[in-house]
Structure formats: structure tokens, C-alpha cells
């Protein structure tokens, strides 16, 4: 269970303070896919950074399964990112000199996943996202965009995190491939019992989520 209460973040600029995230509160349950839509500069990515503990909120709380995360120190935040959060980026952000399998195994290493089980877990996740086993030994540059995003999803879910943060996961893909990726996210959320938070400006993607929120000028509201 993810519980966000009164989360706020402002940036100082020459023109004054910009409230990127303003008093945001919402909750999401395991296995649920939540879509957050909004225009560019509305605060989507900042909200994702706060939830992924890549940035610190000015105020508010983030609770995951009853544990307060907003006040963790650097070490705690790193451990949280390694074991409780999975990221899926628009531009995939796979490590270019590692194979698909090695990219997945990398997060298992960071999360101290049992060494003996890492290979099997990587195979399981790559199979779950439908990557051809032969391609699992290829480097990202030898994979298509859709295949790279499959690997990125496998990497995000590999360490069995409680929360998946997907930032425009279909933004670099054609609509057909994007559709498959959203299905994959839904399926993985269901199988792995994880909360999936998808930030997008694509209405089609948002409509496939269990719940939808719109963010505007840093303020979040649920839409039907």
C-alpha cells in the first residue's frame, strides 16, 4: 500500500518559487496500475522523483507498506531504490555495455538478491516480458526500441519491488508496441503484486490504468 500525504516540492528560480508538486495526496494498492497524466511542466516527473526518493520533498509524507520514506538518510534511500522501487524510463536507459540479461542481473546485485538465484530470476523476468531468449545475450544497441523497453520492464520488476515508477514508458515507441508494453506492465503488476505508477500524456495509455489522475501546476486530482 502506497500512501502519499500533502506532498510538496518547490524550486527556486529567478522568477520566484515554482511549486512543482503542491500538496499532493493519494493512495494506491498492490497490483494496481495508476496513471498520472498532465502536460509538459505540470510536475509529473518531479512527483515521480519524489516517490522514487531521487529528490527530497519540502513537506509531506510517503508511506510504503506502513514505512515512512520521506525522511530516510542517503543510505536508506539507496537501499529503498534498490529493493522497493523499479524505474521504467521513456528512453529505456539500459547500461549500454551490458547484455539484456546482465542489465536485469545488475539490479539483483544492487538489491542483494541471492547470488545463486540471480540468473534464474533474470531468465524468469525476461521470459515474462516476452523477450526472445536468444536476444537476452545481446547488448541494448542490438535490440529494437520495443525489446529494450521489455528489458527495462524486466529490470524494473526483477528485484520484486513494491512500487514501479514508469515515466512515459511508451513515449519512444510506436502505438502498437506501446500497447504491448502497457499490457506487459499490467501483467507484471498483477503477477508481481506491485503498484505501478505510469506517468504519461497519452490518453490511450492512461485509459488502460485502473485509476487515473491528472496533474496540473503541481496539483493532483483523480479523474473518472
Amino acid at each position: 500500500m502506497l500512501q502519499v500525504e500533502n506532498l510538496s516540492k518547490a524550486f527556486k528560480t529567478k522568477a520566484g518559487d515554482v511549486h512543482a508538486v503542491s500538496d499532493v495526496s493519494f493512495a494506491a494498492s498492490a497490483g494496481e496500475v495508476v496513471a498520472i497524466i498532465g502536460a509538459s511542466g505540470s510536475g509529473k516527473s518531479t512527483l515521480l522523483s519524489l516517490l522514487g526518493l531521487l529528490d527530497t520533498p519540502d513537506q509531506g509524507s510517503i508511506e510504503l507498506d506502513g514505512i515512512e520514506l520521506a525522511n530516510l538518510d542517503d543510505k536508506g534511500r539507496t537501499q529503498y531504490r534498490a529493493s522497493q522501487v523499479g524505474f521504467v524510463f521513456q528512453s529505456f536507459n539500459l547500461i549500454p555495455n551490458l547484455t539484456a540479461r546482465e542489465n536485469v542481473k545488475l539490479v539483483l546485485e544492487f538489491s542483494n538478491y541471492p547470488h545463486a538465484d540471480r540468473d534464474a530470476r533474470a531468465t524468469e523476468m525476461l521470459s515474462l516480458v516476452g523477450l526472445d531468449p536468444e536476444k537476452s545475450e545481446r547488448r541494448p544497441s542490438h535490440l529494437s526500441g520495443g525489446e529494450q523497453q521489455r528489458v527495462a520492464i524486466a529490470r524494473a520488476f526483477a528485484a520484486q519491488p513494491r512500487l514501479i515508477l514508469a515515466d512515459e514508458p511508451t513515449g519512444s515507441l510506436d502505438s502498437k508496441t506501446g500497447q504491448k508494453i502497457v499490457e506487459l506492465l499490467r501483467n507484471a503488476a498483477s503477477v508481481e503484486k506491485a503498484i505501478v505508477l505510469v506517468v504519461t500524456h497519452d490518453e490511450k495509455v492512461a485509459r488502460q490504468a485502473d485509476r487515473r489522475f491528472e496533474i496540473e501546476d503541481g496539483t493532483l486530482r483523480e479523474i473518472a
Partner: protein
Amino acid sequence: MLIARDAVNTKIASVRASTGTTVTVSPAGFFGFQGGGTPLSNKQIDTLVTLPYVIAVQASLNEELQSSVTSLTSPTPPGFLGHHFGGFSSRGGFSIPVRFVGTNSPGTALVGGANGGGTEKLTSGTAFSATSTANVAVVGTSLATTNKLSVGSTFTAWGTKVTVVGIYSSGSTFADADALMPLATVQKLAGATNQVTGATVTADNLNNVTAVANEIKRLLGSAADVTSSQATISSELSPLNSVKTISTYTLFGSVIGAAIILLLSMLMIVRERRREIGVLKAIGASNRSIVTQFIAESTTFTVFGAVIGFLAGVAISSPITSALVSASSGSANVTGFVRRPDGGPSFGAGGSGFAPPGGPGNGDGHFHFGDFHNTITQIHTAAGWSTLAYALLMALVIAGASSAVASFTITRVRPADVLRSE
């Protein structure tokens, strides 16, 4: 440069070690049997033993006896040089006098100390004691052969019967023509009581030779000429010291330059891989694990570079070192007599009082003229394990220094900033 510096260092150490730890003292103005001056006294010599760092003082009184004063005949024919240097070219019947060396250190005298720097070895009989006052002698092989002497034989000198107690061989015609006798005996028989014509002072180690020489000069003042092998050799070593200085500065310059280049390279790599660093942090990598990865990379680069540099150094260090030494020693020349590096004390004056025998290139440990300079500038470069260890150590220092700055930059990368720019 490291290899060149090591080679020059080794050469300097070897030359310094080979020149010995002795200081020669002779009456001012006296050289061999030439020149003038006033003999030194036993008392003056005795004070030298008390000086700091001095471990031994070998005193000698040298006499040349004509056939009217001794029954011995010199085995050396006068020849052209004898007539020329002896100034007897216009006279008939000239013969070389027999040299008598009175020494208070027969042990040292028989291993190359007193008698012209030879490598004398006792071939029969015994030596006399340092404090002996007996009328005994240890004679050179050729002197013994010419005069049909063996252990137990007798001859006369200064009208006194002297018994041969030992025979030595040095391999040098000059040194084998001498007779060694106790110092006190020669002083008594020659009517030169309390007189000494030379001393060889031995310092406890190479680093104290100059200090000992300076202290002797201060003590004896203008009464004595004091020369040390180290002082003599220092001017010859100055080109090598210059090369050592040049190579040291170049080495440090290279290390600093390499560190700066690697530092900038690492900063560039970190900058280029900023996104990767941000992503790694986002997916759970700690600063420590990322920094470790970059340090491993920079260390690998540096060690790889060090190995290539080492191999290149092995290949080109010899010509570079030779060129540096040649350039630095172009104007240096040797004057006077110097001893070969495998010998003992340098310069003939002092302890033995003998002019240097032997010819160039015979490698017998005797004095040679002029060829020493070539010996010094002939440097063989070799890269040993210690050089390799230094090279690797420097490589690691460079890698460490550059990695430290790169690491600091890595820790400051904020994944939110990197990912926000998507």
C-alpha cells in the same frame, strides 16, 4: 626516465663504493719520492685515530736504498723511463734503488693498502706484527728472485742484517720489487725516528669520507696534503649527478603530467557517462559501488599504460641515458692519476708514496691514467623488479589521485537532475 635514473644512481653508487673509504695524508709538497716538505710525526698520525668516523690509520715511512746501503739489487732495469725520470741519462752504471716500505699495518699492506695499491698476497712465510721492532722484512717476488731470497734468508740494509719472514706477490712488477718492514724498524734504521711519509686513513663508511678528510685538513693544517678518493671522484660524478637531477625532475614532471591527463580524462569520462551514473543511482547503485567501478577502470588504464611505458622504457632507456650522459659530460676531462673502480684508494701520494704502476686496461686494480672517464660514462640500463614496482606504484598513485577527483564528481551527480533532462 625512471630506468635512466636508476641506471645513473646505480652507476654513481657503484663508482663511489669502488673508490673506497680512504683518505690519504702525505707531507705537504711530497709526492712519491718527489717533491719536498717535512715528514709528518708519529704524534700527528696518532691523533688521526681519535677522529670521528675513523676506523683505521695506516702509517708508512718509505725509503729508497742504493746498493751502497743495502745488499739487495732492484729487479727493475733502469730502462729509458728510469734514466729519463731519474735524471741519470748522462751517467753510466745507474741502477734503480730498492724501495723499503716501513708500515705499521702489514696486514693491510699485504692486501693492497700500503704498497702501491696492489693486490699483494703472501705466497710464503708470515707477515710481521703491527708493533714489531724486529729487523725483519716481507719482500716482493721479483725482489726475492733477483736476490735469491727465501723465507729465512737475510740481507743487509743500513748496515744491519734483516731476515726475510715472508714473500708476497702482487702481479705488479713495480710492487713486487719492494721490501716491507715494520715502521718502527725502518724509522730506527733510517735515522728517521718519529717520522712518517704518509698515512692512509679509513673512514667507517662512504658518507663520512669527506667529513674525515675535512677534519684531517683542519687538524694538520698546512703541514699535510690530504686527498680523498670521494673528493677526487665527485667532480667526475658531477655529469652523472646532473643526469640524475634531470631524470628526477623529468620523472616527477611526467608523473604530474600523467596525473593531470588522467584526471582530465576521467572527468571527461564521468561527464560523458553522467546519465549512466544517474541511472545506476536511480536503480539502486550506491555511490561506493559506482566509485569503485570508476576507480577500477582508471587503475586498469593506468596500469596498462605503465606496463606499456615500462616496456618502451626498457627498449629506449639505454640510448636516452647515453645521450643524456654524453651531453652532460662533454666538457669533463680527467687529469692526473685515478684508480680503477675495482681498486682501493686513489692517487699515489700519501700512504704508499709510490708513483702509480701498471698500464691502462689491464684490470688489475692498479692506477690508470685517463680511461676512468670512459668507464664512468659507460652506463648500462637495466629494468629490475624494483623499477617495475616503482612504476606500478607511481601508476597507482596517479590512478588514485585522478580517481579521487572523479569520485568526488560522481558523488555529486543527482539522478533527479539527470533524469529530469529526458
